[in-house]
C-alpha cells in the first residue's frame, strides 16, 4: 500500500529542512578548513574563493594529532566493548529475573546521572591517585583510568535501554533455549543478544560517542602521551592565535572514520528483531 501523496511531500520537505539544519555547520567547517588563516575570519560567503589544502597538511605539526587520534580510538573502543558487555549482563538480570533489590539497583544506577561531573572530578582523581599510591596501579594519566571512567558514564543509560530492548524480546525464546540444554548465559548469548542487535548497536554507538567526545575528565586524567582528541583539538587554540582552519580540518579528518563506521553499522540498526524472532 503506497502512502498518500501529501505524506510523501511532507516527508520530503521536513527531511530536507532537517538535513539542512544538521549539515549547514558541516558545510561551514569544510569551506573554512580550506582557507588560509588570513581569510578564514573574513566576512562570510557561501561560495569562498581562494581555496587551499594547506591546513590539512599543517594539522599534523601543530599538535600531535595522530597520537591523539590513536588514543581516542583505543579509549573509546575499549570503553565501548567493556561497557556494553557489562550492561548486557546487568540488563539480562534485570529483564529476566525478579530478585530483591532490583528496583534499588536500577534507581541507584540512574541517580549517578544526576550529579554534575565537575564536582566529582576532583574526588575521582584523588581516588585514582590513592589507588595508585597503595597498589601501584597508575590509573591517573593512563588510558586505563579513562576507560574505566568512561565505561561507567555510559553504563547507566546502556543498562536502562537494554532492559527496554530485552523486555520486548519474547521470553518463550530463551526459555526454549534453556530447555534445549543451554544454560542461562547460553540463552543470553545465542538467543537474546542476536535478537537485540539493533538495540545493542544503538547503545554501542552511544557508549562510543560518550567516550569519544568527553572533555572535562580527559583534561585532568590524561597527559601528553595519553591525551584524547576531544581535549587535544583545543590545542589548535593557543593563547595568542586560534587556528580556525586547522581546528576544522582536524575535526573533519578525525570524524571521517567515525562517520564511515556509522555508515557500516546503520544496516544493523534496522535489521534484527522484526526480521526473525517475532514472526
Amino acid at each position: 500500500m503506497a502512502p498518500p501523496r501529501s505524506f510523501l511531500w511532507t516527508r520530503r520537505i521536513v527531511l530536507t529542512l532537517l538535513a539542512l539544519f544538521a549539515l549547514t555547520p558541516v558545510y561551514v567547517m569544510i569551506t573554512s578548513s580550506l582557507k588560509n588563516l588570513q581569510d578564514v575570519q573574513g566576512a562570510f560567503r557561501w561560495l569562498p574563493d581562494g581555496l587551499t589544502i594547506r591546513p590539512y597538511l599543517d594539522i599534523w605539526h601543530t599538535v600531535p594529532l595522530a597520537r591523539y587520534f590513536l588514543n581516542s580510538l583505543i579509549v573509546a573502543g575499549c570503553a565501548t566493548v567493556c561497557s556494553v558487555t557489562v550492561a548486557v549482563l546487568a540488563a539480562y538480570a534485570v529483564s529476566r529475573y525478579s530478585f530483591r533489590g532490583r528496583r534499588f539497583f536500577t534507581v541507584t544506577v540512574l541517580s549517578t546521572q544526576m550529579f554534575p561531573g565537575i564536582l566529582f572530578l576532583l574526588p575521582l582523581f584523588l581516588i585514582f591517585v590513592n589507588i595508585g599510591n597503595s597498589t601501584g596501579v597508575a590509573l591517573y594519566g593512563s588510558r586505563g583510568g579513562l576507560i574505566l571512567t568512561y565505561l561507567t558514564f555510559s553504563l547507566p543509560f546502556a543498562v536502562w535501554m537494554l532492559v527496554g530492548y530485552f523486555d520486548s524480546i519474547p521470553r518463550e525464546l530463551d526459555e526454549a533455549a534453556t530447555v534445549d540444554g543451554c544454560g542461562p548465559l547460553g540463552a543470553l548469548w545465542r538467543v537474546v543478544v542476536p535478537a537485540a542487535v539493533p538495540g545493542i548497536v544503538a547503545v554501542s554507538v552511544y557508549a562510543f560517542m560518550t567516550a569519544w567526545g568527553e572533555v572535562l575528565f580527559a583534561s585532568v586524567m590524561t597527559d601528553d602521551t595519553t591525551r584524547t582528541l576531544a581535549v587535544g583539538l583545543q590545542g589548535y587554540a593557543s593563547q595568542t592565535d586560534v587556528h580556525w582552519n586547522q581546528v576544522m580540518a582536524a575535526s573533519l579528518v578525525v570524524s571521517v572514520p567515525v562517520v564511515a563506521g556509522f555508515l557500516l553499522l546503520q544496516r544493523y540498526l534496522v535489521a534484527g528483531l522484526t526480521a526473525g524472532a517475532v514472526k
Partner: protein
Amino acid sequence: MTARLRRIGLPYLLLLPALALELLIHLVPMAVGVAMSFKELTQFFIRDWNAAPWSGLANFRIAVDLDAPVGQALLRSFGVTCAFTVLAVGLSWLLGTVAAILMQDRFRGRGLLRTAFLVPYALPVYAAVITWSFMFQRDNGMVNHLLHDQLGLTADPPFWLIGDHSFAALVTVTVWRTFPFAFLILTAALQNVPRELYEAAAMDGAGIRQQIRRITLPSLRPVNQVLVLVLFLWTFNDFNTPYVLFGRSVPEAADLISVHIYQASFVTWNFGAGSAMSVLLLLFLLVVTAAYLLVTSRRERGPRKARGPRGRRPARV
C-alpha cells in the same frame, strides 16, 4: 541445593561488575562531593582537604540566601537552566521522533540521510561548538549573513554570543547536537514494532496520522520514558556546550547551572560552595526524577500487571 543457590545468586553475579564500577567511579566520589559541601574548602586548603574546617551548613546558607547576590545569581541560573532544559529536550525529542518516524519506510537515499543526521553527533564536541560560535559571530558569521544580509529579517545584525539572544543560540546548538541521539535511539526502538500491526490498522481504515498516534507512539513509550529522562538529566547538567560556545564568562541569559557551579568552584577555587550547589542540584533532580518515574510508571501499571510475571507485554493498539 547448590542449583537453587546458583539460581538465586546468578542475577546478583550478573549485576556485580556494573555495581562495582558504579560504586568506584560514581557513588564514592559523589559521597566525597557531598562531604565537601560541609567544608570550607577554599584555595587555602586545597593541598590538604582534611585540614579544611567543617563549616556545617554555611555553604548551603550562602547558596540559598536570596537576599544576597550569590543566592540571587544561583536562582537566576537555575531558572535559565530549567527553561533551557524544557525547550531543548522538547525540541530534540520532537525532531528525533519526527525524523525516526518519517524514515521508517524504505526509500531511496535513506541510508545516506540517516548518516547525515548522525554527523552532528559524530563531530567532536569542541570542534562542533566552536564552529557554531564561529557562525554566530555578529559581523562575519554565517547566521547573520543569512538572516540580515540575505533575508533582511533584522534591521541591525543581532548579537548572538552576548546579550539576550545568547539563550536562543544555546538552545539551537544543543538541539543540533542532541536530536541525532534521540533519532538514533528511536530508530532502533521502532524496529521492534511489528509491521503486521500497521497492516492490520491500515485494513481497518486508519490513516497515517492515526497509525502513528495509535501504534507508533504507544510502542515507543517504554523507550521514550528512559530517553526523555536521560535527555533531561544530560541537558540539565550540560557543561561543554555553553563553556565552549561563550568562553570563560557566559552571558547571563545563557548561564547554565553547571557552568555557574564551575565558576563558583574551579575559577574561584571554592570547592565547598560549589559542592553545596551541586548537592542542592542533586536533590532537585532526584525529586524530579522520582516524580517523573512515578507518573510515567503509573500510566503503565495497568498493562504491566497484565503482562504477568513471565509473559510478554501485549502490544497495545
